[in-house]
């Protein structure tokens, strides 16, 4: 049941859409943190940011306070909204196994704004998610970028088709007797399909083929191919295919990234790092809590993700993953950047979100202490200038 205060805030903010957030420290992610800072939000957008002493709060603004204020967090890769929390066949929309390559599957046709895990991650300050079809098939479908509070998919959607999701390595292996059965076969199938898509784009046949059509922007270099890939040889395979077809590739997971840093750096491809606290084993046997720090030291662009979980817990929270990265070699602000401005840049949405700057979306997270500390709480979440969570979590 919604608490009266929260309801009141909803009503008040919906009516006025004007909020003044004051923080002991405001991490704008666009310059140095502001001590005793003020963030004004008007009509859903950031209006002004600066020291409270210099930013006068106009009358009628809803005042909110917190020790730490940050931009709303961005989860650079998740499957929440498609992978339901009950983990039953009826609520698992992130993978369809009838064919190994189905780039025509759109995330917007599956995303559920009401899914409990969307609400769950929002409560910790996550306001934007790159979500969609998950790892587990050679090409599983498309991804989208959404805000975590909205009445329906249309209103939630920031980018309806963000990337096409692919998987290489053991996770993409088909059942016994079906293709792809080996790593080499995966690459052969992927290259064949990319060639077909290229030809389809050149010839533009009368009969539409949704599958090849969906790969069109990928072979044209307009839409990134998100490749979930963990082992070092498979990372190199992904880079090889990316270069052959001039793709915009994003390496995802990349447990072995720390073993092929030079090659990744040379490729120019960014990395969405596996969850820092992910379980090791199988494909991810070599994963490390220090991968983010090593990518940083190598100058490779990266962001953090909550990833995909097949069992309990059904999702991780990217806030906590960033905390683990901060505890394992990243500086505090580098870790915060990996779930705010760096994630926004990697996803190409930095004109809208990722930092607290005038004109950007009014997405703000409030914390009662170091956001990465286990015992701190998220005390408020604002999306598009509306208070969407005030539960202390």
């Amino acid at each position, binding site marked *: 049941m919604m608490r009266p205060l929260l309801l009141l805030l909803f009503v008040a903010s919906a009516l006025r859409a004007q909020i003044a957030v004051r923080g002991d420290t405001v991490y704008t992610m666009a310059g140095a943190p502001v001590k005793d800072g003020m963030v004004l939000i008007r009509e859903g957008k950031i209006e002004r940011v600066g020291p409270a002493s210099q930013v006068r709060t106009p009358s009628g603004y809803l005042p909110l306070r917190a020790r730490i204020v940050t931009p709303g967090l961005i989860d650079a890769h998740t499957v929440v909204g498609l992978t339901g929390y009950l983990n039953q066949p009826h609520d698992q929309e992130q993978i369809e196994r009838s064919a190994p390559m189905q780039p025509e599957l759109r995330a917007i046709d599956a995303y559920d704004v009401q899914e409990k895990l969307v609400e769950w991650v929002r409560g910790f300050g996550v306001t934007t998610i790159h979500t969609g079809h998950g790892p587990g098939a050679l090409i599983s479908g498309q991804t989208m970028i959404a805000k975590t509070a909205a009445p329906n998919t249309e209103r939630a959607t920031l980018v309806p088709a963000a990337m096409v999701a692919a998987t290489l390595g053991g996770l993409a292996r088909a059942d016994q007797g079906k293709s792809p059965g080996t790593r080499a076969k995966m690459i052969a199938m992927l290259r064949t399909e990319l060639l077909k898509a290229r030809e389809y784009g050149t010839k533009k046949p009368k009969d539409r083929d949704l599958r090849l059509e969906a790969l069109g922007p990928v072979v044209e270099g307009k839409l990134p191919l998100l490749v979930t890939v963990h082992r070092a040889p498979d990372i190199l395979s992904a880079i090889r295919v990316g270069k052959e077809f001039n793709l915009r590739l994003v390496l995802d997971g990349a447990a072995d990234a720390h073993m092929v840093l030079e090659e990744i750096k040379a490729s120019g491809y960014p990395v969405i790092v596996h969850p820092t606290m992910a379980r090791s084993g199988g494909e991810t046997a070599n994963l490390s809590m*220090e991968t983010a720090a090593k990518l940083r030291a190598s100058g490779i662009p990266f962001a953090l993700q909550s990833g995909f979980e097949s069992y309990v817990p059904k999702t991780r929270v990217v806030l906590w993953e960033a905390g683990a990265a901060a505890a394992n070699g990243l500086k505090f602000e580098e870790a915060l950047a990996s779930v705010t401005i760096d994630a926004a840049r990697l996803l190409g949405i930095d004109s809208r979100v990722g930092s607290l700057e005038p004109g950007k979306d009014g997405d703000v997270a409030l914390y009662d202490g170091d956001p990465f500390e286990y015992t701190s709480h998220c005390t408020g979440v604002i999306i598009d200038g509306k208070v969407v969570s005030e539960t202390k979590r």
Partner: protein
Amino acid sequence: MWFSKLLACLVGVSCVPLAWAQQKPVAFTGARILPIAGPEIPDGVLVVWGGRIVAVGPASSTRIPAGAARVDARGKVIMPGLIDSHSHIASVEGADASAPIQPDIRVLDSLDVRDARVQKAQAGGITTANVMPGSGHLLSGQTLYLKLRDGRVIDDLLIRLPDGRIAGGMKMANGTNSRRNAPFPGTRAKSASLVREQYVKAMDYRDKCRQAGGDTAKMPARDLRLEGLVEVLEGKRTVHHHTHAQQDILTVLRLRKEFGFKVVLHHVSDAWKVADEIARAGTPVSLILIDSPGGKIEARDNRLESAAALERAGALFGFHTDDGITDSRLFLRMAALGVRAGLSREKALYGVTMANAIILDLQDRVGSLEPGKDADFILLSGDPLSVYTKVLETWVEGAKVFDRANPKDYLYAVGGHGASHDQADFFELEDWQ
């Protein structure tokens, strides 16, 4: 010296060669000590000798024996080694798919102590773990309480009880995991019915054994399954019961009342709904807190608030990793997440140490820093509940089993190439280089 060793053997502490190696007392000085048995000591001294704790107290009043090696632990925090009351490390296997109730199965016959996950548990500061088979059965086998000593074979990690038996419990489960195709149960009621049927048989078997009065001719033929259950009925083997949903929790309490076995409730996602019932029954809880609710229907209401609810109700509860559901290296994190959701700091730390010692009936030898107890402790870089704190060293019975300063141990602590290699492979590889 010989006397303390003899005494150690008599009271049942395992006489492990590793512990014997420590011939000289070692005194850790200058640390902030969290003894769990009492209030925090800002400038404390911990003295260990012969695998046991000899003294613990403030620097001002704690005598350091002559000839003791001194370790400067200023700026560090020392607390008891962590106890995990539910883990699946060491490549554990239990019952197979042939039947839902298999009390004759022993995890003893499956464990590989060179599994990399044992090293990772040491890296997380865990010194004692209840290693269990899975929850896909109503009863999946006999568990083992292990000391995470640096061992070559399983025997090196066992805990011998005063009567010579090997310490361990019995794993049971209800709810949805054990509901499968026949011969497994299809409903909750059938699950309870199958269990009751076996307990009735075990009672009958026990009575026949008693009536034989030691006369081997009158004894019933040995039945390994019923023998296992008789140990449960006699309270020699605690039941560690997987149970999530509130109705399943209440079923366990009902069966306990009917058959009188000793039971610990495990996971207990719905603990916050029935905290008072649990407390009133006096049944301990081994709790798991996870990053998000769900993953399966019975865990859909799992909440971080459960720990605080159990504290308010006055129930005894500890935490567990359920490794690999959560990572042993992040065990302290779970205690901290409890605090995030309203649990007191004291009960959070108690929940990863002393509470689990009680749950495993090992409270006389582990769980707190007190003279006479096993020298199982950890050195931390800072506050145990901070994300930035590292486990620097883990000691079991006076032997250092994890040292973050050692590159091999560091690899297990943070991961990387080789971190999932089992111990044997890793060392053999090194030997050949």
